[in-house]
């Protein structure tokens, strides 16, 4: 439990901490800062007018002007201008009225400094850390699948959603956790919502992590199955990581950048080598793996990776993944700006309204909002924003650039993924993303299926499919569902126009597959480990021995339970006669958004207890939206009578067919397949019920806590007591004039007079 002090957070905030008179100021004077903010010089007005005009023009080009095609550059401008306006005005509004950070207060990195877990970190560096921790394969995959609804719905949701919901959640959770010494979301839920709400939040988090890890693993399986090149180069990451781990452990400890560069070179060699090996007869045979054995391989790998010491596999691969992330995303942004691809996809497609799209079933509302989770609103971030980052923040006001700004950056990654997916031919897009149950997995089947969809402007030929497969160095690109292969084709298509020409397409395709697999495998490892500790902690309440995390048998047992849980969902997805991704992906989005609803519910209770009812809407609006979207999506998945949407409707349809003695039904061609559908839909339906029930309990607990706070006019808080800060650092990327003035005073201080603290 936190220290439940009843310090009024509004009025006495300034008087709470006394400044050390022998030191220069530790914060910019709020009045000077306010005056600086309000000083609208002509140059400043001109810049913001230009940003607004360019942003407005871009939105007009995207949403209103209807030509044959639209240029990708408008996506970039619309996104960047909206982000800038959201960051400058909305996040500042939240800062000023809701959070009221106080730089005179020390952050946990200062008052708990140990030089290790708690260490004040330069804001620009921490921004990079935080971004690398939140952004992975999620924002690369969701937008690709949502592209079937046309370009506009996804674009609006990604950009508007992040400004009003996703970035708000990340910022709030980071700030509240920082004020509580870096407490985790689960602990905050317990503190704010009581035992029932807290327990439900914990179980929901655990279940949601299982489903998220499973579906990420499914994306990898779909990308690598029957692709010898991909299997070779991705499996080479394991020996490369082991080598890096040993190098850091035994030869040159601490030379992280050095070994990351070596690892990166080896990785490129593995990609190039993969092409050569897949070209040989034995290589093509040896590394050709069917989906099911591949899934089992990943499950075994997941278990081993999660029990090996961190230094051997997880840490080095994490370095590699961070290194790739920053580089690749920067490269893709530059390439999109240079190439500026034309996009021929309609603004809103036929499937958005009819809800019968082959990629993911369901209508625009609510399924667009669960298909794109990461990039617009991602609950998983709440676990990161209440994990490492709050323990490293130097000054309170920096949470805005790190929390809000970091999420805007992830949203931009999602926009780029959407552009890459939209830039490929629409016929090829549907051939790749419709399940094998629909296309039959053959060129002829795919051509017949896609052309039979009756999409305007789509005329797929067999040559288009075979040529694209040849270009990217694969035997086939039919029904490569999951989003990663489509993104890779789009990315290869864009990158080859800048570097290397069409001869390099196969390299870029496998480069993209490699980095997506790298992100996902890191998330799988880390997710399994985090989930294992959560499980050990919970089991420890009943069997105290489990609390001892160095107890080998307990660690292995709990790891095995977690791996078995996500492994079962993975195998279910891989063997699903209905296609896997199209039935399971909505569950991923729903799970992620429910976690967001839980995080926002906790934030709402905190805001209410702080007595800030006037600004409660800042949390209540995104919470309400996330709740409506996820609960209605869950209800559709549970109660819909349309078999392609409702799990139980599908279950019933197949059960009845079996009872009637039929031996094939829909896309299931055998009795075993039909039985598998019955089993899978039952499990998926039960999971949906579990998630939505837990989320409703948590939200109800938060609403109750909010109401109670309103009735009692609460202004209590579970924050750590305020401690005076003894250091100064600017709040944003660039220092303001006032910040430079304060910094100059610190720089002029003789070293002997500087307070004893860590950092620099």
């Amino acid at each position, binding site marked *: 439990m936190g220290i439940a002090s009843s310090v009024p957070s509004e009025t006495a905030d300034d008087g709470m901490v006394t400044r050390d008179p022998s030191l220069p100021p530790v914060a910019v004077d709020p009045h000077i800062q306010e005056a600086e903010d309000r000083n609208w010089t002509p140059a400043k007005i001109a810049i913001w007018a230009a940003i607004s005009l360019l942003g407005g023009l871009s939105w007009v080009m995207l949403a209103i002007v209807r030509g044959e095609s639209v240029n990708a550059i408008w996506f970039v401008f619309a996104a960047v201008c909206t982000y800038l306006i959201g960051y400058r005005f909305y996040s500042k509004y939240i800062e000023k009225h809701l959070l009221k950070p106080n730089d005179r207060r020390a952050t946990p990195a200062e008052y708990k400094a140990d030089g290790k877990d708690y260490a004040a970190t330069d804001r620009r560096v921490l921004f990079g850390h935080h971004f690398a921790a939140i952004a992975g394969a999620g924002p690369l995959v969701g937008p690709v699948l949502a592209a079937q609804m046309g370009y506009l719905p996804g674009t609006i949701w990604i950009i508007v959603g992040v400004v009003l919901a996703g970035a708000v959640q990340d910022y709030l959770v980071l700030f509240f956790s920082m004020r509580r010494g870096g407490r985790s979301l689960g602990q905050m839920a317990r503190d704010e919502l009581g035992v029932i709400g807290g327990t439900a939040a914990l179980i929901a988090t655990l279940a949601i992590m299982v489903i998220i890890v499973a579906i990420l693993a499914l994306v990898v399986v779909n990308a690598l199955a029957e692709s010898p090149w991909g299997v070779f180069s991705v499996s080479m990451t394991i020996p490369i990581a082991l080598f890096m781990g040993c190098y850091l452990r035994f030869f040159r400890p601490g030379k992280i*950048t050095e070994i990351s560069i070596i690892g990166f070179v080896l990785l490129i060699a593995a990609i190039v080598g993969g092409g050569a090996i897949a070209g040989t007869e034995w290589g093509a045979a040896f590394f050709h793996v069917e989906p099911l054995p591949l899934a089992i391989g990943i499950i075994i790998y997941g278990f081993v990776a999660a029990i090996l010491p961190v230094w051997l596999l997880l*840490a080095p691969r994490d370095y590699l993944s961070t290194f790739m992330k920053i580089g690749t995303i920067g490269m893709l942004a530059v390439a999109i700006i240079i190439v500026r691809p034309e996009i021929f996809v309609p603004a809103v497609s036929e499937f958005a309204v009819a809800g019968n799209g082959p990629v993911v079933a369901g209508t625009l509302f609510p399924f667009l909002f669960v298909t794109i989770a990461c990039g617009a609103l991602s609950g998983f971030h709440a676990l990161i924003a209440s994990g490492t980052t709050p323990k490293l923040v130097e000054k309170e006001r920096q949470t805005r650039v790190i929390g809000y700004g970091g999420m805007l950056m992830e949203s931009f990654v999602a926009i780029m993924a959407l552009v890459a997916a939209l830039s490929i031919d629409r016929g090829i897009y549907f051939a790749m993303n419709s399940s094998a149950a629909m296309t039959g997995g053959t060129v002829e089947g795919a051509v017949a299926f896609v052309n039979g969809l009756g999409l305007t402007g789509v005329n797929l030929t067999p040559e288009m499919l075979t040529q694209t497969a040849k270009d990217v160095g694969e035997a086939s690109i039919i029904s490569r569902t999951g989003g990663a292969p489509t993104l890779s084709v789009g990315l290869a298509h864009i990158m080859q126009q800048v570097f290397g020409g069409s001869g390099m397409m196969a390299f870029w395709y496998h480069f993209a597959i490699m980095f997506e697999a790298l992100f996902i495998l890191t998330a799988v490892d880390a997710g399994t480990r985090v989930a294992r500790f959560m499980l050990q902690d919970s089991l420890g309440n009943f069997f105290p021995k489990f609390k001892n995390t*160095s107890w080998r048998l307990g660690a292995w047992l709990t790891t095995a339970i977690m791996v078995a849980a996500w492994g079962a969902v993975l195998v279910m997805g891989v063997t699903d006669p209905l296609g896997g991704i199209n039935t399971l992906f909505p569950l991923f989005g729903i799970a992620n958004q429910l976690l967001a609803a839980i995080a926002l519910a906790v934030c709402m209770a905190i805001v209410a207890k702080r007595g800030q009812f006037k600004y409660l809407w800042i949390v209540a609006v995104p919470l309400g939206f996330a709740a409506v979207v996820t609960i209605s999506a869950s209800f559709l998945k549970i109660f819909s009578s349309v078999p392609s949407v409702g799990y139980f409707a599908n279950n019933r349809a197949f059960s009845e067919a079996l009872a009637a003695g039929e031996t094939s039904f829909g896309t299931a061609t055998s009795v075993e397949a039909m039985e598998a559908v019955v089993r899978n839909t039952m499990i998926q339906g039960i999971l949906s019920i579990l998630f939505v029930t837990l989320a409703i309990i948590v939200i109800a607990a938060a609403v109750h806590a909010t109401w109670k706070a309103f009735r009692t006019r609460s202004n209590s808080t579970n924050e750590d007591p305020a401690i005076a800060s003894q250091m100064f650092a600017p709040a944003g990327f660039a220092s303001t004039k006032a910040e430079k003035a304060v910094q100059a005073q610190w720089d002029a201080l003789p070293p002997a007079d500087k307070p004893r603290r860590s950092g620099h």
Partner: protein
Amino acid sequence: MGTSLMTAVGASDWRMLAARAAARLRAIAQHVSWYVSAMMGDDAYRKYREHHESQHRDDDSAEPMLTEKQFWRDQTDRQDTNPQGRCC
């Protein structure tokens, strides 16, 4: 502008301009390498050492400072019991 500049400035001026450009490039390169290295966490031991020294400046009874090798081992070993999530 190009030709008039060519004739107006002598060889020594060119050398000065080149030196200034090189210095600027070096500064940018230094900044990039600082950022990458800080991002990857190369400076973790230096930060730990500075923290330890500043905390125990005149205090001999404090726990001894870890050596560089011990520190890096301890860093990954602590992650074994305190795993960090990585998002999707």
